[in-house]
């Protein structure tokens, strides 16, 4: 399940952000990927739109990894 969510998250990011695809790893943080605050908002909007889960952009902290974000989404889904 978390693999799927992670893949969906990377698909969302790839549409928005110009970082090379090989930098999208489960260990990469938003800060390392140089994701700015407006992109965080856009990611939050698309997680809600595409995955049906509400994750406010304030929850997407710069230190959060992509794997951690996928886990956060899965935890909310399970609720």
């Amino acid at each position, binding site marked *: 399940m978390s693999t799927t969510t992670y893949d969906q998250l990377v698909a969302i990011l790839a*549409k928005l952000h*110009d970082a090379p695809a090989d930098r999208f790893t489960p260990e990469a943080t938003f800060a390392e990927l140089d994701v*700015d*605050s*407006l992109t965080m*908002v*856009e990611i939050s*909007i*698309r997680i809600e*739109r595409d995955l049906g889960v509400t994750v406010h952009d304030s929850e997407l902290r710069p230190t959060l990894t992509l794997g951690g974000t996928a886990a956060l989404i899965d935890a909310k889904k399970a609720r």
Partner: protein
Amino acid sequence: MPTHSPGPPAAVLCGLAGWVPARVVTNDELAERLDTDDTWIRTRTGIRRRHVIEPGEATSDLAVAAGRRALRHAGVASVDAVIVTTTTPDRPCPATAPAVAARLGLAGAAAFDVGAVCTGFVYGLATAAGLITSGVADRVLLIGADTYSTIVDPLDRANAIIFGDGAGAVVLRAGQADDPGAVGHFDLGSDGAHEDLITVTAGGSRQRSTGGEVQHRDRHFAMRGNEVYRHAVTRMAQSARAVLDTAGWKTDDVDHFVPHQANLRILHSVADDLGLPRERCVTNVDAVGNTGAASIPLALADAVARQAIRPGDRLLLTAFGGGLTWGSCLLTWPDIQPVPADPYDRGDETAS
């Protein structure tokens, strides 16, 4: 203007023009005074340059230039009403429209301003259409004009990179609902509970009656970027869907989506949400930035001049702005004389 076939009257677009001031501010020039650079601005906003007025110029100067070109494009010398929609009027009192009308030789016409911040052009279209369908006016000149350079703090990195000055104008005439160019369906809305998200705090009755010294930041335009972004994307998509539903159009019926040119990322997000291919999104934000109430007619003028928009094409206009306000309108592009090759006067600049 007499009409020869029965049916309810409608407002029909018959003239269009845009104008921007000569002075160009590139991203590199901004980087000289702000902690930013060209790549950062381009990747975050899609903006490469913007035009700004010279000291001493005002919103009405841009409005007159755009209005004169729109009247010429429509081939008309007189109108019954002039509407200026702006957030940056020449003065707090009176409205800017009467002075614009007088300078265009339209003295005697009804003239007033409409304020809906960046949604102003769509609100203005609905107002102009109302004057025509109610029989108050047969022809209306609607001008969206803004000079955000006069309210944005030049050292405000977040906003100084986004906004530019400009004006765009359309002429509407009385006609029939099935005429190409008839502005048909509208969706308009607001949510004033969020008035603080986009604001100039000082200068109005609240601050004047309060008294005391005005803080530097309160004199300038302020925007809570992250919250505005979320509202903009959500409200624009909702408004677009609402007007399409009202008209019985499907997303695929839209040949061109002409949104308020806020920021390229917002436009792409809304287009993606609607399921519209991004290439159907009309944009010139790279060349002029966010020009407030002028942005939709400037984008239209640019696209029509490039013949990207052709007679018979179906358009969805959607805007969002301070207030909060939002609105959408549908129209089919009329068979009017093409706009001259240079869509808006770029003054002395040769486009790079």
